[in-house]
């Protein structure tokens, strides 16, 4: 197989469920996990005579997404009906948007695995209603239809075919996932179906600039499946073409158990959806004032925050990116800076020290047992030399374990305050040197490494509290060669 001869072209369609309380066109709840059909109201069921009324929160969410991606906001967006019959689609049509979506062209910076940034174009993002669910188990020869999910607001985010590999696709999807959570419009819960990915995949001979026939792999609900499904589909297409076959444009499903993609029974020979403007809904007008009010409700955008972290707080680019990817982490970091006035330390400690502990305990930063105020306290004491870096880690552990309310309290209670009294340190130094004549000989004989042995002994004797700088100074003075 000659992978090198082919170029992969991928575009993603992501369905992000908007984190509203009620449905996009009705006042029924969208809470997850309710009894079947207990959250399907007259409008969701498509009873005769019912009418849709648009949820403002869904509009605000979509506009926020547009602002976050620098996209055009549709000033007069139009809902259209997509007509097809399916039992999970109660009205026989899905209310979606076609010609005039709420969000137009935009762009997103995708941080890839190697840290490189790739820009991926966004074609559009439009609002639509979700369908219900068909359950095939439990009934002989029949399917059960649960319409609780019908009418849940979705933002369908469509990318340009700018993506060139499964890895890039995952990086892009993760970036969108992080963004919608960052701006708080989607909870991103993939198990519950709040974030679903469809991948349009085609291949073409490297160097060609015409697109090959694409297949659409539907409903990928984890990043791992997304990567796997694309790789498998690309292989399938290469095999097909190299054997002289043709790729047919179709919808495929990824089966994780068999680890293969399968053609969905072509839902309809000719999918003729007969889109037309929904006569029950009017054009949605969005003016400057509305956009401004959405902007005011938005957190500082990752891009601007990144610039502020690197420019004002003098963080390194990669460090800053690690912090801004997730809004809770960035917020925690900022709170730590506020409490400590130590941005460099704060970045390091949030990413590494606290980060490692959280990861080990499998906790999100929102669940951190140590809050930003507490961590800031530790870093303050580190900066003003009350404690050493090593002691600081002990203080953090003590805070984590709930042994005290603040760094100061723990330092006090455990007597961890650094010894900075020169006389006291000198006494310990003398004591250690006197107890290790052999090592003193070695050092004086030119063996520099032995200095570490002395420092270790001194720190041990001082229970780690001796100021390491002073220890070094004194040692060097006393062991003058």
């Amino acid at each position, binding site marked *: 197989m000659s992978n090198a001869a082919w170029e992969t072209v991928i575009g993603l369609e992501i369905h992000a469920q908007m984190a509203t309380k009620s449905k996009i066109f009705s006042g029924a709840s969208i809470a997850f996990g309710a009894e*079947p*059909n*207990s959250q399907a109201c007259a409008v969701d069921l498509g009873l005769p005579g019912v009418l849709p009324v648009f949820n403002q929160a869904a509009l605000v969410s979509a506009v926020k997404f547009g602002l976050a991606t620098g996209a055009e906001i549709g000033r007069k967006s139009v809902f259209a009906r997509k007509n097809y019959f*399916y039992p999970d689609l109660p009205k026989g049509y899905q209310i979606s948007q076609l010609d005039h979506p709420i969000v137009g062209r935009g762009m997103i910076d995708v941080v890839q695995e190697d840290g490189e940034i790739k820009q991926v174009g966004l074609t559009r993002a439009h609002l639509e209603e979700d369908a219900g669910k068909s359950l095939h188990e439990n009934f002989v020869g029949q399917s059960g239809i649960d*319409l609780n999910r019908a009418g849940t607001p979705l933002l369908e985010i469509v990318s340009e075919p700018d993506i060139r590999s499964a890895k890039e696709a995952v990086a892009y999807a993760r970036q969108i996932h992080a963004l919608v959570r960052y701006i708080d419009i989607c909870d991103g819960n993939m198990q519950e179906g709040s974030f679903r990915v469809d991948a349009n995949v085609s291949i073409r001979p490297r160097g060609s600039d015409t697109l090959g026939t694409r297949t659409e792999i539907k409903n990928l609900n984890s990043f791992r499946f997304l990567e796997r499904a694309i790789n498998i589909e690309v292989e399938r297409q290469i095999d097909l073409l190299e054997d002289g076959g043709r790729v047919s444009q179709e919808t495929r499903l990824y089966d994780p158990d068999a680890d293969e993609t399968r053609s969905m029974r072509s839902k309809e020979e000719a999918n*003729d959806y007969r889109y037309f*403007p929904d006569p029950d809904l009017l054009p949605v007008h969005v003016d400057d004032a509305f956009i401004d009010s959405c902007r005011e409700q938005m957190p500082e955008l990752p891009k601007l925050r990144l610039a502020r972290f690197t420019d004002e707080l003098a963080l390194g680019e990669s460090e800053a990116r690690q912090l801004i990817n997730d809004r809770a982490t960035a917020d925690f970091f900022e709170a730590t800076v506020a409490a400590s006035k130590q941005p460099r330390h704060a970045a390091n400690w949030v990413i590494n020290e606290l980060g490692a502990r959280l990861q080990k305990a499998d906790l999100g930063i929102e669940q951190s047992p140590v809050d930003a105020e507490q961590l800031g306290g530790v870093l303050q004491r580190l900066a003003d030399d009350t404690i050493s870096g090593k002691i600081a880690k002990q203080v953090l552990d003590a805070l984590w374990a709930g042994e005290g309310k603040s760094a100061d309290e723990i330092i006090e209670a455990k007597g961890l305050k650094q010894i900075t009294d020169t006389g006291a340190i000198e006494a310990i130094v003398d004591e250690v040197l006197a107890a290790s004549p052999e090592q003193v000989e070695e050092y004086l004989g030119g063996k520099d490494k032995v200095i570490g042995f002395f420092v270790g002994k001194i720190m041990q004797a001082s229970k780690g509290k001796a100021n390491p700088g002073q220890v070094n100074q004194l040692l060097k003075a006393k062991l003058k060669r």
Partner: protein
Amino acid sequence: MAVDNKTVIDMAHLARIAVSEDDIPKIASQMGKVLEIAEKMAAVDTDHLEPMAHPLDAAQPLRVDDVTEADLREAFQAVAPSVDKGLYLVPKVIE
């Protein structure tokens, strides 16, 4: 425009309506006559006209995001042809 039998079959399928073989020619002829009326539109120059989807030039009102609907499943399913365990039943959906 003349509508052929195949068009009737296609549209009946798209609209999920069972039509009997015998009725198809009559439906074709009647559909053809209706579309003939529609074809009179072709003679009019409409290039400068904005399509009109609504009789009034109004904007979509927005609903406050509140949960206002109670669980009325029992009442709604009382008129359903086939339900079990709160689910609407249909012949097995094959995927």
